[in-house]
């Protein structure tokens, strides 16, 4: 085994064990960020030791012992603040002195602790841009270098974000707490938001030639599956999982061999992953069974499901999509959702109806400078035979388009109107 092989093997073992290590240490120390730091130290110890000794027969137990020893050392170095502290240390030392029962330690049901870990990493008080990085680091066990690669930012930036996030947690006394009751719903929505952010980052960014770039879509799916397994009664968790499974099912059809994007309606549906669609459909059904039909993610999943159900683009149930967008619009009050509704209504009822919706949001500040607004308008006008107005709309859209390829496509459509 080469040194690089050994390194990869150790990282793989560590990644599988890490959530359990963090949760176990967090319970000892009542401090999630500190627990994370000490598990990193345990990893360093393994990287130093295992290349010489070989991977131990029970690598999980080895890592657990090492991490817990590090935790006890840490507590021992702290100033003796009060009797509680002394008592805790005494207890831990006693535990350490006895032959520890690793089976019991390893068999612990980590569900609750895992949930606490996820809630902590995705805390709404954390700066927005630090949450995905912290979640990938603390829950998925990605290294700083891997996260940097995934988000196409420098390692220093990621390291800084993580440090900042951990400091925020410690300073605001949020290092170890679990939400209850009403707060739970708000906190869960922050967790789901982080997961969806990670997914979209992976979904929009082309993977390119960087095969070492971690697949953020997979990480997000894994996180969502974990949340669903630990908190199976939350309909929106199922809804988000459904949405991501259904979107990910189109991955193979989304780009042509040159890597250029292919729009949904033009995709070869034979390339859609049927098994993944089925999983998405099952998750959607679970979300709806749990009363989540009107939820933000569940509604979006239901819309994507309409596309997934249609064997050909022409068979798409646009009427249902338009209705679902109307519901989603009531939930979000977002003009971007209205824009999508205009497209669906334009398909279901005809371009004139779509145009009516578009006229109502034409002045929405959120859409100012957004090229899709005139682009959709151009398409509806074209279908109404109002070619001169359509041409002007496509030209306006081209002027706003962010990338060259899109701009060229819009100018081509404008020329076709002459």
């Amino acid at each position: 085994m080469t040194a690089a092989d050994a390194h990869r093997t150790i990282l793989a073992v560590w990644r599988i064990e890490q959530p359990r290590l963090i949760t176990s240490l967090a319970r000892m120390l009542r401090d999630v960020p500190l627990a994370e730091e000490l598990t990193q130290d345990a990893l360093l110890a393994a990287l130093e030791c295992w290349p010489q000794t070989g991977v131990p027969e029970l690598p999980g137990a080895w890592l657990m012992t090492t991490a817990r020893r590090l935790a006890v050392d840490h507590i021992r170095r702290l100033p003796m603040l009060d009797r509680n502290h002394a008592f805790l240390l005494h207890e831990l030392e006693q535990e350490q002195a006895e032959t520890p029962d690793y089976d019991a330690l390893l068999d612990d049901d980590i569900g609750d602790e895992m949930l606490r870990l996820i809630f902590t990493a995705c805390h709404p008080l954390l700066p927005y841009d630090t949450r995905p990085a912290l979640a990938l680091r603390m829950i998925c066990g990605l290294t700083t270098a891997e996260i940097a690669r995934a988000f196409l930012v420098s390692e220093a930036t990621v390291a800084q974000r993580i440090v900042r996030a951990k400091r925020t947690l410690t300073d605001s006394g949020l290092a170890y707490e679990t939400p209850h009751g009403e707060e739970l719903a708000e906190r869960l929505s922050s967790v789901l938001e982080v997961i969806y952010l990670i997914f979209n980052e992976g979904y929009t960014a082309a993977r390119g030639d960087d095969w070492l770039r971690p697949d953020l879509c997979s990480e997000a799916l894994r996180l969502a599956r974990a949340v669903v397994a630990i908190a199976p009664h939350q309909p929106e968790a199922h809804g988000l999982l459904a949405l991501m499974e259904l979107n990910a099912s189109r991955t193979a059809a989304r780009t042509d061999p040159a890597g250029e994007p292919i729009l949904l309606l033009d995709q070869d549906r034979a390339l859609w992953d049927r098994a993944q669609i089925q999983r998405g459909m099952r998750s959607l059904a679970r979300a709806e069974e749990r009363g989540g039909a009107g939820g933000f993610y569940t509604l979006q999943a239901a819309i994507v499901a309409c596309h997934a159900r249609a064997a050909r683009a022409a068979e798409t149930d646009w009427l249902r999509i338009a209705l679902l967008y109307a519901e989603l619009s009531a939930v979000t009050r977002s003009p971007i959702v209205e824009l999508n509704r205009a497209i669906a209504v334009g398909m279901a009822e005809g371009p004139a109806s779509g145009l009516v919706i578009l006229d109502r949001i034409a002045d929405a500040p959120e859409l100012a400078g957004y090229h899709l607004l005139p682009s959709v308008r151009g398409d509806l006008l074209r279908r109404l035979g109002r070619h001169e107005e359509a041409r002007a709309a496509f030209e306006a859209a081209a002027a706003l388009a962010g990338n060259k390829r899109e701009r060229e496509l819009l100018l081509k459509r404008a020329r076709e109107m002459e």
Partner: protein
Amino acid sequence: MRFMSIVTSPRSETYGNPTPELLEAMGKLADREIKAGRMIDNGGLMPIEQGARITIRNGELSVLDGPFVEAKEVIGGYAISEFASKEEAVALAVEFMQLHKDHMPGWEGTCEVRAFAGPPTA
């Protein structure tokens, strides 16, 4: 990356059913992996005697019910999981096989780790 891990053991050895300790240990491992969001599906299979084989040979399609005397290695179970790397898949298979070593002495078999074909995506 999605992987399928398939456990096979030699037919000639009759090990009987998994010990309760092994079943419990495997159950805990599966539970942990499901809660970690990695394991998507898993299952143990009924004995091959109760199965069937549908074969095409020399252009002929045939359906054959068990038992199959010629079967040397039989599949006992499988798991489908999402891992970031082959190393992770191997690490978990090692952990899984270690459970057999610990809880079912004398058992021999193989766990094969295979990546799903197709684009390397979610």
